[in-house]
């Protein structure tokens, strides 16, 4: 998405007139950016700030507060491995290690081909399916270590 297109999208959001105050569109606008840019950079924040009349720093605060928003470049797919209580007890750390091994990156890093970013995450509300991982918005429950390559391949992983 280009910055101009993004600005258009934010304008469209405003036109929906869902919220009484423009400030309330900050998170929806950040979501559009999160989905369409490799990261939410300062230019994106400037656009949101000027369109919504929200102080620049408030936009940056929101973007940097929520773990779901990336202000650093991320891969095409963000793999989130929950290591909160239920998932941890069900072996999520071994999933994490295996993913590090398969992808050749450490937690928090992005693969060289820009395909995957690996993240350690807090509870995603999928405890009944612990250990749980998500890849972008797709969820995988009761994941076993051996299933990981299949999951990765689904998203274009070239390894084996």
């Amino acid at each position, binding site marked *: 998405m280009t910055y101009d297109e993004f600005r258009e999208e934010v304008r469209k959001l405003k036109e929906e007139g869902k919220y009484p105050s423009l400030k309330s569109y900050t998170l929806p606008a950040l979501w559009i950016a999160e989905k369409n840019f490799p990261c939410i950079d*300062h230019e994106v*924040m400037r656009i949101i700030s000027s369109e919504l009349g929200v*102080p*620049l*720093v408030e*936009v*940056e605060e929101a973007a*940097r507060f929520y773990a779901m928003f990336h202000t650093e470049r991320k891969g095409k797919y963000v793999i989130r491995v929950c290591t909160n209580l239920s998932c941890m007890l069900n072996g999520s750390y071994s999933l994490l290690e295996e993913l590090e091994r398969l992808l050749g990156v450490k937690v928090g890093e992005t693969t060289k081909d820009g395909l995957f970013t690996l993240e350690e995450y807090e509870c995603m509300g999928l405890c009944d399916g612990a250990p749980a991982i998500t890849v972008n918005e797709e969820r995988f429950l009761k994941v076993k270590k051996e299933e990981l390559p299949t999951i990765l391949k689904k998203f274009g992983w070239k390894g084996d």
Partner: protein
Amino acid sequence: MESFKIVIDGKECEAFAGDTVLEVAERNGIVIPVFCYHKELRPEGACRVCLVEVEGAPRLVTACTLKAMPDMVVKTNTERVKRARAGVIELILNNHTLECPICDKSGECELQMTGFRNGPKKSRYREKRREKDIVIKGPLIEIDNDRCILCRRCIRMCGENMGNRVLGILNRGYKAYISPFNGDFLEGGCEHCGSCVDVCPVGSLLDRAFKYKDRPWRMDKTWTTCSLCGSGCTIEVDSYHGKVKRVVGRIGVNRGHNKGYLCVRGKWGWDIIYSEKRLKEPLLRQGDSLVKVDFEKAVEVLKEKLEGREVNLFLESSLTSEELTKIRDVFGGKAVSDSYGYYKLLRGIASITGALNTSLFSSIYSSDVVFVLGDFIEEFTPVIATLLRLAVIQKGKRLIRLGTFPSKLDSVSFSTLLVPQEEIIDTLKHLIVGTFDSSYQSGNKEIDSVAKSLRGKKLSFVVGGNVPFSVESEEIGKTVAFLADRAGAPLVAIPPKANSLKVVELFDLVEPSNLKGEVNVLINCELERDFPGVELPSADFTVIFTPFYTPEVSQADLVIPIELGLEKRGTFKGIEGELSLDSVLETPFSLLEVLKYLPSKGISSKEKQVPLIKEPGKKVLHRKRELLLTVLPNRTGWNSVSYYSENVVKVSGKRELLLNSQELREPKLVSLRVENKELQVQAVPDASVPKGHALLRVERFTRDISSLLRGNFPFLSGIKCEILEA
């Protein structure tokens, strides 16, 4: 208001509805430690060091947010409270870089003091201290995040009280740190008021001009009045061995009407006294050049040249009342002054009230609705704009503003009437009728609704900003005074310069063309800044009393150095009565000393009479195709502060012509034409500039601006102009 009793530490204390326990305790001399609480800020309850025990409540409560209730019994120093407090402080100190020996705040740091008084004897923590190592360096402010205790005082100060919201918290939890957007103060819209630095309890927010310069405990602290505009702020000047190290406002402690709030000029402009352009010795013309002479020689020449001659007196209005009185005594009472526009405004007001004067600024606090008239109050007299904002957010006043250009104040105003400049007087006239007659219809809904919100309310009026420089200043004065008079309300006329009121009181201010003397005497002026468009009359001799090498020094025959505001003792006639100046600095020269050698003219003072007319003013501005020009000095440039101050120049603004974005599509060089004079200037479209108006922002009044304005003195606003292709 009805009061009730609460008991704190066994003492019966009087409390009022809305008081917090902390406030009641403070009034009764009971000390509760605080970090995030600040008298001038909305309570936040973030740090939890103010925990107290309340009878009947199972848990400890934060005194700063707890509202006092009748018969409440509070204990502030039980073992339980002490342990909890020490625990809170222990947690804060664990991750605090204890670098007091090199920290500027040491000696006046609240963490240091509260830590010593209430902290644990030693820490039980074994974990490594977390270091963020994030230091943000702005042009004048630095944030050392390892010292930050995340009390959010700075954020509340900047966002709520100043209305800027430059600072915020980035990241979350342990990693959270304070920063402006993208680490950039200027892009974030920082006005460099210094208020965040002032309220930071620790050494996290730093004044870069002071960093590593001195220690708080050994400096001389002198309370004086800032002379850099008509706000007349009370400031604390800290110096060591006669050298100024910094200026602080001390928000919440300061007893002046500014309550410790400052602007960039007052906070950082003190270094003009050390400017390289400072004049240190008298200069005397010899042939084509000016040569240094000693004071005896200068005084001798001065006496000889002035003897029996009539002078053309040019007077700037930041001189003290004592200096002005002496000046009138030796040079006579006729002068051309930069307060001429303000004088016209006051004359307009006086034609209704009979007095060439203003109400005290504090009179607005006894009204319910404050009617503000004027644009750019935040540029000319920034702290007045801050105080108006605070009147709304702290004291619940309703603000109504009438002007032409949008203002930051509008974000807190109850309503804002923006009308083209030529309609200001007509709008006021509609209000004169509509405010008192509910059946009146002006034909404009907005005006009618403002009239309705004024009707039957206890009103006060404030006129300032660029109004004294408007071609209609006198007529606006009459009209707004007529409205205030009918409402029986006080009218505050904000002076543009620190002692404009005294100049108006003491001198007969005249048009420059009325000066017919043989000797030009300029005191504290910069010709192009104070008298744009005015040429020095030809005279046999020109004497300039000035603190700086000003451009017109080259036209002088004799130049005599004088002091600046921070170097003076004396008084101003200010917006809140008499304001006093004090100083421990010494200068080898003194205006009053020199004037002592001149014979007195023995002019007796007489009260100035302005005929009472009691009629609203008449509209002066009519316009066809032309644009109306306003020349606006940037906040940093008012009084030439950014020109002489190495601090302030770092954040100075620029020169540009702002035009309505429908009238100018994209930035380009244009030629701005006023009558037959032209100025090439970069024009920029700006949605906030109303159609039909042109706003020329300047950092400094230079020769070309002065030439453009020839014949318009004392006006800077409402000047007809055209924009041509460059």
